[in-house]
């Protein structure tokens, strides 16, 4: 906190932040607690970490969690294969008997050993097994870890700002939650969405903006859609609409909705959406 008390997060160039979320980020940084973000895909959980990094000019380290991941992979890797190879062929400059030369820092390890305060984004923690989460809890709590192979402890030089995202595939354990601050990002409302679009297309035609955004929300409401289009899809869709010289914003009000494939990625969803837009007018 001390060295960063004068730096607070207020939003980055491409990221629209509501002041509630800004407050939450700031309080988490001040209390030095990891911030756990939940919310449906496309609400900008991952983008937030990028935005903070950009805004506060801190390096961003991203740990993309995978389902089979073990915590030790995130901390460091002991490259046994290279060592085995070196010992057999002996054509490298590394000293085979020095194990430390074969230790590579993982993402958490990099964040801990960095000289400067970093943002550590642990993306989609819920993909991993509960063991992973519990083990990580210990490491985050103690802010240090051991490299067993060389019997060395890696302490934290500067405590990183930790952002954790979850899509809620699995519940996180209670002790894990206890150490985090929590926020659930709701899907942006149309007003907010207009601001988001505006950031991406500052010169957008108001007519196009209004029609595209309201068509987008109507399409999100179509029943039985498996994967609802999110912010990313809307941005790409508007990009497609703008690139088409024949397209006029008025078309959307007539129920002529082009490039549905940009919004709906699953064939069933696409068929459903096409069906609906043909049957009735959207706006």
């Amino acid at each position, binding site marked *: *906190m001390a060295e960063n008390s004068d730096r607070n997060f207020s939003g980055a160039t491409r990221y629209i932040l509501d002041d*509630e979320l800004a407050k939450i980020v700031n309080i988490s940084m001040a209390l030095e607690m990891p911030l756990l973000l*939940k919310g449906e895909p496309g609400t900008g959980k991952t983008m937030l970490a990028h935005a903070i990094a950009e*805004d506060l000019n801190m390096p961003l380290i991203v740990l993309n969690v995978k389902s089979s991941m073990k915590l030790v992979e995130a901390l460091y890797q002991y490259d046994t294969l290279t060592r085995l190879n070196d010992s057999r062929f002996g054509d490298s400059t590394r000293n085979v008997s020095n194990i430390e030369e074969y230790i590579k820092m993982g993402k958490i390890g990099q964040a801990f050993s960095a000289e400067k305060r970093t943002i550590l984004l642990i993306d989609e923690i819920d993909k991993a097994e509960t063991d992973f989460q519990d083990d990580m809890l210990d490491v985050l709590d103690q802010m240090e870890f051991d490299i067993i192979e060389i019997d060395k402890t890696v302490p934290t030089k500067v405590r990183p700002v930790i952002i954790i995202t979850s899509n809620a595939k699995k519940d996180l354990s209670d002790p894990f939650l206890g150490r985090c601050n929590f926020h*659930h990002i709701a899907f942006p409302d149309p007003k*907010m969405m207009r601001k988001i679009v505006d950031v991406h297309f500052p010169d957008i035609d108001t007519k196009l903006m209004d029609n595209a955004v309201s068509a987008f929300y109507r399409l999100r409401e179509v029943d039985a859609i498996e994967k609802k289009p999110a912010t990313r899809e809307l941005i790409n869709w508007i990009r497609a609409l703008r690139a088409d010289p024949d397209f006029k914003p008025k078309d959307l009000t007539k129920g002529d909705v082009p490039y549905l494939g940009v919004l709906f990625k699953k064939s069933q969803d696409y068929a459903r959406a096409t069906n609906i837009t043909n049957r009735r007018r959207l706006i």
Partner: protein
Amino acid sequence: MHGQQILQTAEDLFKMFINFFYKLKNADIPVSPTSFLAFQKALSQGHINTLNDLYTCSRTILIKSERYFDLFDQIFAHHFEGAEMPDLEGVELEEMARALLDEWLKNPKLLAQALGMDESEINKLTPEELLEYFKERLKEQTERHDGGSKWIGTGGTSPVGHSGYHPGGMRVGGVSRNKSAVKVAMERRYKDYSLRGPLTQAMVGEALKRLRNMVPAGPKDQVDIDESIYHTMKNCGEIEIIFKRSLRDRLKVLILIDNGGWSMDPYISVVQTIFNYASAQFKELKTYFFHNTIYSNIWEDPSRIHRPQRVDEMVRFDPHTRIIIVGDASMAPYELSATDGSIYVHQRSGKPSIEHLKFIARVFPHVAWLNPIPENMWGYTHSISVIREIFQMYELSIDGLEKTIAHLMSK
């Protein structure tokens, strides 16, 4: 805390937060003393200067799931209704809260020393006792302290920048918050996520996503370290790398739905939601339909005419298949136990339905019955009690769905 009560002392203020904490706790929101202490730390560091700050910070620190956001909103609105944070000159809870809590959070040993207590003694206290003790200490300190620094309501000195333009050209967008925090809380924006709220698509998806079963499948593209070492040793050190298949999700799921009769009508749409979400989830997902209870056939088509599946042939299915039966399990006793119990003449098969149900339970170890009728009503229906003896039954709610998943995934 109702009305425009003016809080005179730090003690009052402290009591207000303690009460708030216990209100949350009594509403069955899992709030821990640790997080309450973290909240106090935030207060003492001067991060909370307005009611808005209080709302946002207390929620982000104390509440760990969006399912409780709605309940939190209600309690917050009730507790702080009309109570704008008063301007409290000369309240110096800050000092002692900081001194006490920082140590508490960072180093229980140090705190134990400072209080003249043994660490093990502190550990022995229950969370409630701990809080009580903490409160007592704070009171004592309030009396002793004679400094004067401002706390809540001093306004404008927040280090937390939450509006305006940064010189670097960043922008703060979003909803401008002209409403009071209480009003925001009263909007109940998180109603749909509430545990007590209706089942929504997102919640069902969330619960069902936990149904996973990882088994080796696909190409052999992962190095099997143990096998590689073994074979390399066998080769006198000539390296031989062995590959194995990676783990994939290969769970088979059957959903059997009671879609007949008016008694299930209100629940059909909820159950439909479950389908929509479930379909992409598994290696294999099949849905069958039945009416009231299961006789010799179940059907692939909702009208229960065209594509029957004989129940006794289900023995050919993978026994690890997870079966979820959705139905109200409410029917006349004879429908279950009579040899020709079916209300449809063409279904009379010579075996009572209960035998078919027991057969399913024998063949498949992982079966759960989801019942849309609230659990406290189950005792009044005979057929429910009978079926409960055969299958694990859960209520069709987010809670029940989670228990179902846990039951289906247990070994």
